[in-house]
C-alpha cells in the first residue's frame, strides 16, 4: 500500500515534467504546479506512513535502469528528508505561480523545476549505489539549469553557474568514488549489502570512503572550504529555486554524510567525527561572519545557510563522537538536535529566501544599502521576513530557539567523557555555537533593520508595493511552520527520534519525552515551548497596555514638542542620515579584519583652488571570500597557466600536427624494437 505512494509520486512528477515541456505558456505554470503538488502529496503521505509505523518501504524494479535496476528503500531517516523537501517544494511552487510573471516561466525552467523536485523527493529513498548516483546527478544537472534560469546572459549568473557546475561535479566525483569503492569491496551494490560487509572492510578503505564522502557531501551542504559555489549560486538563482536549494538540496548533503558515516559504515573512530565537527565549526563561524558583513540580501542568506549547515555538522560530529565513545543516548540526542535544526532551517531559510525574492520582485534590487522602509510598503512580506529573522536568530518562542537549545543541551551535557579529543572538541563546539548565535543575530538585525525599517534609500524602494497573493501565501506557509515548530516541537520529535534510531541503532526512540515539557533522556534540561510562548505573549500584551496607558496620559499634557525618533531633536531627516548595512557591519568588520579582508577604495576629488578642500569623497568597500581568493583562485590560475603552455603545441601548422603523429609512431617503434 505505502509502496504505491512512491510510484504515484514518480508518475505525477513525470507528468509535471512533460507538462512543463509541452504545454503553452498560459496553462504551463498551473499544470506543473498541480502535478508537482500531487507528486509531493504522494511522497509526503508515504513518508508519514513510514515515520508512523517505523517500517521501511521497499520498491524494486529491474526494468527501469538497464544493468543495475532500481532499488528503493525508504526508512524513517530518509522519510524525514522527503517530508522536508515536499513541504518546501509545495511552498515554493505556490510562490512560483506569482513569480512566473517575473521570470522562470520558460519551457526549460518549467520542465526542470519539477524534475529537480522529483529527484530530491526520491533521492532519500534510494536503496542502491546506482539508483542513488543517478538521482544525485539528475538533481545536480536540473539545479544547474535552474540556477542559470532565464538570467543566463548576465555575467554574474554565468560565473555563478560555472562555479556551481565545477563544485557540484567535483563533489559528485568524490561521492561516486566513495560509493563505488564500498560496493566493489562488498560484493553488491545495494546499501543493505554494503551495510553487511562494512565491518569486514580494511580500515584504510573505510577511512578513504568516509573522507571522500565528507568532501562530496560536504560540498553539497556548503561546508567550508567547499562552500565557494553557495554564496554565488544561491543569490543568482531565481528566488523559488534559491528556497529549494537552501531549504531542500543542501540538506541532502547532510543526509549523505549520515548515510555513509552512520548508516553504511556503522559509525567509525572518533577522528572521523572530529573532522566533521571541525568542518562544522569552520563553516558556522565563516558563514555567520560573512552573513554579518554582507550587504546583498540574498548573499547574506546564502552565507547564513553555510553557517546553519555548519551547526548541523557540529551536531552530527558530536553525535558521532558520543556514539564512538559509547554514550549512545547522548549521541541520539545530538542527532535529533541536528535533524531538528535541518527541519527548522528548511522552514525559516525557505521563507526568508522567498521573502527576499518578493523584495527583489517589488524593488528590483537586492542591495540592502538601496532598500529601507519596506515594512510600511510591504507589510505582509515584512512581517513574514521578521518571523524568519527571529527564528534564525534563535529567539523564543520560534523554532530556531528549540533546536539551538537542544544542540546546546546535548553538547554541554556530553562533556564528561573518557576521551581527551572529545573533551577538547566539544567545548570548542559550544564556543563556536555561541559566537555564531551572536553573529547571526547581528546579521538579521541588520537585514531587518536596514532593509525593512527606516526610510527608503532609493527610488526603487520608495516605489515598492506588495507582491501577488500566491507569493505571500507560499512564503507565509513556511513562516507558519516556523511558529508551529517553535510552539509545539512535539509534532516532529517522535519522528526525528525514530530517524535517529535508524542512524544510531541500539537506543530507544523516545529520548525526548513529554507533550508539554520537553524532557531529554539522561540530561537535566527541561523546556516548555508552549508555556514559554504563552508567557512571552502575555509579557508583550502587558508592555503594550502599559505603553498605551502612559501614552494617553502624556497626550493630556499640553507642552509637548514632537520630533522624529533618533533625530537628535531635529525636524528634517533624510534617508542618507540613516545607518547603512555597511556602516552597521563596520565594527564587526574591523574586529575580524584578518578573516574578512575587505577591499577599501577611497576616491577623493579636490576642489580646483585648494588641496585642503574636498569636492567629493567616495568610499567603496567590497568583501571577497578569503577562501575563494587564497585557495581556489591560485589553483585556477595554475590550471590556466598550464593550459596556456599547452597552447604552444598548437600553432596551426599542418606539418607540425603531422610531425607529432610521426614522431610518436617512430618513438613507439624504436621502443618496441
Amino acid at each position: 500500500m505505502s509502496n504505491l505512494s512512491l510510484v504515484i509520486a514518480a508518475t505525477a512528477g513525470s507528468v509535471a515534467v512533460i507538462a512543463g515541456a509541452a504545454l503553452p505558456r498560459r496553462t504551463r505554470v498551473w499544470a506543473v504546479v498541480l502535478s508537482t503538488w500531487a507528486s509531493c502529496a504522494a511522497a509526503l503521505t508515504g513518508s508519514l506512513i513510514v515515520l508512523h509505523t517505523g517500517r521501511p518501504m521497499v520498491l524494486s524494479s529491474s526494468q527501469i535502469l538497464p544493468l543495475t535496476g532500481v532499488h528503493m528503500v525508504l526508512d524513517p531517516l530518509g522519510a524525514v528528508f522527503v517530508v522536508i523537501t515536499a513541504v518546501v517544494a509545495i511552498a515554493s511552487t505556490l510562490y512560483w505561480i506569482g513569480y512566473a510573471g517575473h521570470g522562470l516561466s520558460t519551457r526549460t525552467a518549467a520542465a526542470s523545476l519539477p524534475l529537480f523536485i522529483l529527484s530530491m523527493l526520491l533521492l532519500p529513498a534510494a536503496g542502491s549505489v546506482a539508483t542513488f548516483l543517478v538521482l544525485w546527478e539528475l538533481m545536480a544537472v536540473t539545479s544547474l539549469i535552474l540556477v542559470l534560469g532565464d538570467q543566463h546572459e548576465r555575467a554574474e549568473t554565468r560565473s555563478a553557474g560555472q562555479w556551481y557546475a565545477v563544485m557540484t561535479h567535483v563533489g559528485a566525483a568524490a561521492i561516486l568514488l566513495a560509493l563505488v569503492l564500498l560496493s566493489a569491496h562488498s560484493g553488491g551494490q545495494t546499501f543493505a549489502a554494503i551495510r553487511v560487509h562494512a565491518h569486514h572492510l580494511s580500515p584504510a578503505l573505510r577511512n578513504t570512503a568516509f573522507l571522500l564522502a565528507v568532501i562530496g557531501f560536504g560540498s553539497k551542504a556548503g561546508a567550508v572550504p567547499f562552500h565557494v559555489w553557495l554564496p554565488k549560486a544561491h543569490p543568482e538563482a531565481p528566488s523559488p529555486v534559491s528556497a529549494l536549494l537552501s531549504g531542500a538540496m543542501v540538506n541532502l548533503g547532510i543526509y549523505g554524510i549520515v548515510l555513509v558515516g552512520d548508516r553504511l559504515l556503522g559509525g567509525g573512530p572518533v577522528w572521523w567525527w572530529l573532522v566533521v565537527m571541525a568542518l562544522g565549526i569552520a563553516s558556522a563561524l565563516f558563514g555567520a561572519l560573512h552573513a554579518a558583513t554582507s550587504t546583498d540580501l540574498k548573499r547574506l542568506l546564502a552565507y547564513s545557510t553555510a553557517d546553519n549547515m555548519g551547526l548541523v555538522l557540529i551536531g552530527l560530529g558530536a553525535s558521532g563522537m558520543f556514539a564512538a565513545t559509547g554514550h549512545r543516548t547522548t549521541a541520539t540526542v545530538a542527532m535529533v538536535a541536528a535533524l531538528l535544526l535541518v527541519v527548522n532551517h528548511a522552514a525559516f531559510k525557505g521563507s526568508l529566501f522567498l521573502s527576499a525574492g518578493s523584495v527583489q520582485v517589488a524593488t528590483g534590487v537586492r542591495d540592502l544599502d538601496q532598500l529601507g522602509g519596506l515594512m510600511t510598503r510591504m507589510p505582509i512580506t515584512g512581517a513574514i521576513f521578521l518571523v524568519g529573522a527571529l527564528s534564525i536568530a534563535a529567539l523564543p518562542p520560534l523554532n530556531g530557539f528549540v533546536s539551538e537549545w537542544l544542540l546546546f543541551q546535548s553538547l554541554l551535557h556530553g562533556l564528561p567523557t573518557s576521551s581527551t579529543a572529545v573533551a577538547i572538541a566539544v567545548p570548542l563546539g559550544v564556543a563556536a555555537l555561541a559566537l555564531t548565535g551572536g553573529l547571526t543575530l547581528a546579521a538579521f538585525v541588520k537585514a531587518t533593520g536596514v532593509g525593512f525599517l527606516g526610510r527608503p534609500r532609493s527610488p526603487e524602494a520608495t516605489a515598492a508595493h506588495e507582491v501577488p497573493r500566491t507569493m505571500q501565501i507560499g512564503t507565509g506557509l513556511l513562516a507558519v511552520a516556523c511558529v508551529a515548530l517553535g510552539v509545539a516541537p512535539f509534532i516532529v520529535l517522535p519522528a526525528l527520534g525514530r530517524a535517529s534510531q535508524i542512524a544510531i541503532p541500539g537506543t530507544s526512540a523516545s529520548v525526548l519525552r513529554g507533550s508539554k515539557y520537553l524532557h531529554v533522556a539522561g540530561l537535566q534540561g527541561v523546556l516548555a515551548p508552549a508555556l514559554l510562548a504563552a508567557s512571552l505573549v502575555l509579557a508583550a500584551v502587558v508592555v503594550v497596555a502599559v505603553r498605551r496607558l502612559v501614552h494617553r496620559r502624556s497626550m493630556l499634557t499640553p507642552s509637548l514638542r514632537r520630533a522624529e525618533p533618533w533625530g537628535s531633536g531635529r525636524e528634517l531627516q533624510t534617508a542618507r542620515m540613516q545607518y547603512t548595512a555597511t556602516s552597521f557591519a563596520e565594527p564587526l568588520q574591523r574586529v575580524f579584519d584578518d578573516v574578512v579582508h575587505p577591499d577599501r577604495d577611497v576616491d577623493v576629488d579636490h576642489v580646483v583652488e585648494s588641496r585642503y578642500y574636498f569636492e567629493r569623497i567616495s568610499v567603496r568597500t567590497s568583501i571577497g571570500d578569503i577562501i575563494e581568493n587564497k585557495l581556489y583562485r591560485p589553483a585556477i590560475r595554475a590550471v590556466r597557466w598550464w593550459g596556456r603552455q599547452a597552447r604552444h603545441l598548437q600553432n596551426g601548422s599542418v606539418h607540425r600536427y603531422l610531425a607529432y603523429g610521426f614522431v610518436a609512431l617512430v618513438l613507439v617503434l624504436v621502443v618496441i624494437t
Partner: protein
Amino acid sequence: MNGSAYASLLELTSGLVLVCAVVTMWRRSLPAVVKALSLQGVALGAAALILGVHQHDVVLIAVACLVLAAKGLLIPTLLGRIVAGDPSSREATPVVNVPASLVISAALTFLAYGAAEPVVRLIPTTAGRLVPLGFATLLIGFFSMVVRRKAVSQIVGLLLVDNGIALVAFLATAGVPLLIELGASLDVLLAVGVLRVLASRIGSKFGAFDLDQLRELHD
C-alpha cells in the same frame, strides 16, 4: 612458376614499391613524383598478382587487377590533372631538404626492419621476409607528409602510407578478403577525390597549393 623465379619476382616487385617511395622523396618535380607513384601502384599490383598466381588464388588475382587499375592508373591520372592545373609544379622548399630526407628515409628503412622483425619471425616464407619493405614504405610516406609543403605531395604521402599497408597485408596474410580490399580501395579513391576538389579550391582561393599559407586558419 618455379620456386626461385617466384621468389625473385616477388622480391623485385616488392623492392620496387620501396624504391618508388624513395624516388618520391628524391624528386622535387611533381609530375615526376606522380609518375613514381603510378609505377609504385603497378609494382604493388604485380606483387599481388604474383602471389595470386603462386597460390592459385583466383580472388587474390582479381584483387591484384583491381589494385593495378585503381593505384596504377586511376589515382595517378586524377593527381596528374591537379598537377597540370598548378603552374608551379615543383616542391620548391620542403621543410627538410632532399639529401637529408634521403638519409632519414634510409634510417626509417632500418627502423622498419627492426620493428618488423617479430612479424618476419612469425611468417617463415619468402613473402614474410619482405614484410619490412611495406613497413618502410609506410614510414617514408608518413615522413613525406610531414616535410612536404604542396597539397599534392601530401596526397602522395597518404597514398604511400596506404600502399605500404596494402603491401604488408598482401605479404603477411596472403591475400585480404576481396570485400575489405574493395572497401579500402574505394576509401582511398574517395579521399583522393575529396582532396582533389579541396586542392583546386585552395588553389583558386589563395592562388597557391602551399599548405603553409593556411596557418592563419587555426582557432
